[in-house]
């Protein structure tokens, strides 16, 4: 991207093309300016107050940045600056500070920032809490002996507070219950709504007859606790959803298009149409499917196929969106854009695979299925029993209402969201993003783990295999040849040669032959480093990642490479095996490299050269054999398998299709959190079950009292709040201890330390 002088921008008339078609050009520019002046970065690694200042200072030091603000809760930074500010500069600046950063789509992020539904729920929660407190004060005086006119007055005031509050705060339940009833179904919200309405109605009736018992406080408390559960649930989901949407935008939605005049312009991907010529620079990712019309290069298609060996790209060749251009610039004529491109072609496969998972029933669903009809039947029976027994409609209705209130799934409504919130929060601090509400339950049930290789177990950066065995002279020569290249294999050679001494004749006339390798001359002899077939060596397709060096007519030397393991890969595999899980590796790569990685991390069951269909089939087969599979993968070739698996995890570097298909996204680099994630998931599921049991125990104690007509509003209030609080406290045990404030000397919050020392 060219750095333009900002002064020429406001006019928007600086380039000749603008003169030709001013309005369209201006519009495009305007859009580009509005988009580029606001950049959002995802910062998965930040934890401390010190990180906030480091990031904000580091970003502010970058030229063109006007304002940088870190949000520690969401682990992201918003940067506003001049229109020509490029995210890469910021990411580079942060990487220099040792902070991992990814770009996010500011437009999507801005959409999710104003979380309307969450705010609305919080407002209802506030109203319910306020009303509940006031009514509770009045109720306490009634319970402690206020009688006659005072009691009636207090009941009337309670009614006056309760009616508007309940009408406003309870709306989510009424709407959901109505929607369920209209479809002829019962959900958790039907008994809730019924209990609230019945409680308010009978209480009003009792108040009018100056009766002793009114359940206004119970109705409000019920609403309050249930809204609290609903809000927690919403917040967990909203955080995961917004972060996932922003991650989806990690595929930076821009393309460099050739204009009619031969110039270049950066346009949003949505503006690219079929037939456009797109410039893809070395290191850039193909934004569209297309045919190479000019240039020669090599392509890294590991995200799509799992192959680590770069493929050659020459004019006339098909390329797919998602492939990375390595050595030379390419001009690609777009043949399919957006949803038509190969990136989206596997959607059908994914849809089929997903149907297998759709019939998963969460623990909460199962509980609701048992619970909702049971409550109604119990309440109806006690009404019928008392009506037949006493013939008194008022007593019968009162008792039916008491039964409904006491059994109301107050604690049940909190049981799942409280645990999920606590567990997701704990895992988020570890760098894991839980996207799906039931992912934790499913994760706890797994017995088999299937890993993808390229980009998942490995970081996708090759290293020289058996570097010690290579003669110094040869290695230094190869490194000198590869010095100027951006090709990953050349970089690996340079890295391997660092610190090695050796005699190396000067290489003259060094030039990169895009798509093939590097060529130079020593004396009169041609030296080539590059693809085996180009150098003149016999190509061995099973050899995996390799490059050849040949001096003149001497025998070529082949360098072999392995993909470097992601940090924590071996620890993750070992940890999962220690938990008694079966770990497998399925890759689309050549057998040699798959075997090498499998040996390194300690996986005995592996399969190479697997197509996307093979991967999905392997998962389905395991599922049909009664196994619960966790799939960990990042490529498009893993997408179907990710969707078919019982639960799936993908790293943040994965293609968006893969991330969409998976339930959990790994935000950091380190894989070693996987065993802990499973441990937390198991603990969370245990707590959810415990919570159900606790709620049931309270019901078993309180329901007979209610049915027997002994339940007073005081007992109802006690049972309800006691069970809700027990359940919430139990859930908090999952959250674990917060990370120690001063985790390490360099991570510690300096000012916090100073504060404590000053005391």
């Amino acid at each position, binding site marked *: 991207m060219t750095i333009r002088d900002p002064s020429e921008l406001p006019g928007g008339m600086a380039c000749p093309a603008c003169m030709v078609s001013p309005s369209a050009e201006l519009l495009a520019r305007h859009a580009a300016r509005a988009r580029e002046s606001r950049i959002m970065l995802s910062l998965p690694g930040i934890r401390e107050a010190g990180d906030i200042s480091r990031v904000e200072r580091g970003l502010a030091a970058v030229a063109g940045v006007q304002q940088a*603000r870190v949000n520690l809760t969401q682990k992201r930074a918003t940067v506003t600056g001049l229109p020509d500010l490029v995210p890469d500069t910021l990411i580079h600046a942060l990487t220099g500070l040792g902070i991992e950063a990814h770009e996010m789509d500011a437009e999507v992020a801005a959409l999710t920032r104003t979380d309307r539904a969450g705010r609305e729920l919080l407002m209802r929660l506030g109203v319910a809490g306020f009303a509940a407190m006031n009514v509770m004060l009045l109720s306490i005086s009634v319970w402690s002996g206020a009688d006659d006119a005072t009691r009636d007055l207090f009941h009337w005031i309670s009614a006056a507070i309760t009616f508007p509050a309940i009408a406003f705060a309870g709306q989510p339940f009424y709407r959901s219950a109505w929607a369920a009833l209209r479809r002829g179904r019962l959900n958790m919200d039907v008994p809730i709504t019924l209990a609230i309405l019945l409680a308010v109605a009978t209480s009003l009736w009792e108040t009018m007859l100056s009766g002793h018992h009114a359940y206004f406080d119970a109705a409000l408390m019920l609403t309050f606790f249930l809204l609290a559960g609903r809000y927690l649930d919403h917040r967990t989901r909203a955080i995961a959803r917004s972060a996932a949407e922003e991650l989806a935008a990690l595929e930076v939605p821009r393309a460099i298009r050739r204009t009619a005049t031969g110039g270049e312009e950066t346009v949003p991907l949505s503006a690219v149409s079929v037939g456009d010529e797109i410039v893809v620079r070395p290191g850039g990712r193909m934004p569209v499917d297309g045919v190479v019309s000019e240039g020669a290069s090599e392509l890294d298609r590991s995200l799509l196929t799992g192959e680590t060996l770069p493929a050659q790209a020459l004019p006339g060749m098909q390329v797919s969106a998602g492939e990375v251009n390595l050595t030379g610039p390419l001009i690609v004529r777009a043949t399919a854009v957006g949803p038509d491109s190969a990136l989206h072609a596997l959607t059908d496969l994914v849809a089929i695979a997903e149907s297998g998972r759709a019939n998963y029933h969460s623990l909460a669903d199962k509980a609701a299925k048992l619970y909702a009809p049971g409550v109604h039947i119990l309440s109806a029976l006690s009404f019928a029993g008392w009506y037949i027994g006493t013939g008194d409609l008022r007593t019968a209705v009162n008792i039916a209402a008491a039964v409904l209130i006491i059994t109301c799934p107050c604690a049940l409504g909190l049981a799942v969201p409280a645990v999920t919130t606590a567990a997701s929060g704990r895992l988020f601090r570890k760098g894991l993003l839980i996207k799906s509400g039931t992912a934790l339950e499913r994760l706890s049930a797994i017995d088999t783990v299937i890993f993808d290789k390229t980009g998942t177990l490995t970081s996708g950066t090759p290293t020289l295999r058996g570097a010690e065995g290579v003669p110094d002279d040869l290695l230094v020569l190869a490194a000198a040849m590869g010095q100027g290249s951006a090709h990953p294999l050349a970089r690996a050679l340079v890295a391997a040669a660092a610190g090695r001494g050796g005699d190396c004749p000067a290489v003259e006339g060094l030039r990169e032959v895009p798509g093939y390798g590097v060529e130079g001359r020593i004396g009169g002899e041609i030296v080539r480093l590059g693809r085996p077939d180009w150098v003149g060596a016999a190509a061995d397709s099973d050899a995996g990642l390799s490059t050849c060096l040949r001096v003149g007519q001497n025998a070529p030397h082949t360098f072999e490479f392995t993909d470097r393991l992601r940090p924590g890969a071996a620890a993750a595999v070992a940890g999962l095996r220690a938990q008694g899980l079966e770990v497998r590796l399925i890759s689309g790569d050549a057998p040699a490299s798959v075997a090498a990685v499998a040996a390194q991390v300690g996986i005995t069951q592996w399969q190479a050269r697997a197509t996307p269909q093979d991967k999905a089939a392997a998962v389905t087969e395991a599922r049909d054999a009664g196994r619960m599979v966790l799939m960990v993968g990042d490529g498009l070739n893993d997408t179907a398998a990710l969707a078919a698996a019982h639960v799936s995890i993908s790293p943040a570097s994965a293609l968006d299709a893969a991330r969409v298909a998976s339930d959990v996204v790994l935000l950091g680099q380190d894989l070693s959190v996987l065993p802990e994630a499973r441990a937390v998931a198991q603990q969370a599921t245990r707590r959810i079950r415990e919570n159900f049991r606790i709620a049931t125990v309270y019901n078993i104690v309180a329901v007979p009292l209610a049915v027997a007509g002994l339940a007073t509003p005081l007992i109802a209030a006690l049972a309800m709040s006691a069970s809700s609080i027990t359940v919430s406290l139990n859930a908090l045990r999952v959250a674990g201890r917060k990370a120690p404030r001063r985790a390490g000397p360099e991570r510690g919050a300096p000012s916090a330390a100073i504060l404590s020392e000053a005391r």
Partner: protein
Amino acid sequence: MDVLRFLIPVSIGLGGVGLLAFFWTLRSNQYDDPDGDSRRILTDDYEDTPKADQADTPPPRGDE
């Protein structure tokens, strides 16, 4: 019991003030970054650019 005539409206009124204050915190985005806010208060940095209510219209930087 005549005192109730004042006490009840006063207590509900005070509660209402609290409720309004809560609405205000909601509307001014004070729950966007609870973690960050709790730590920023401990840093010694002087903030040139405290968070704007509307992130779309940031205030200009102080030193420019």
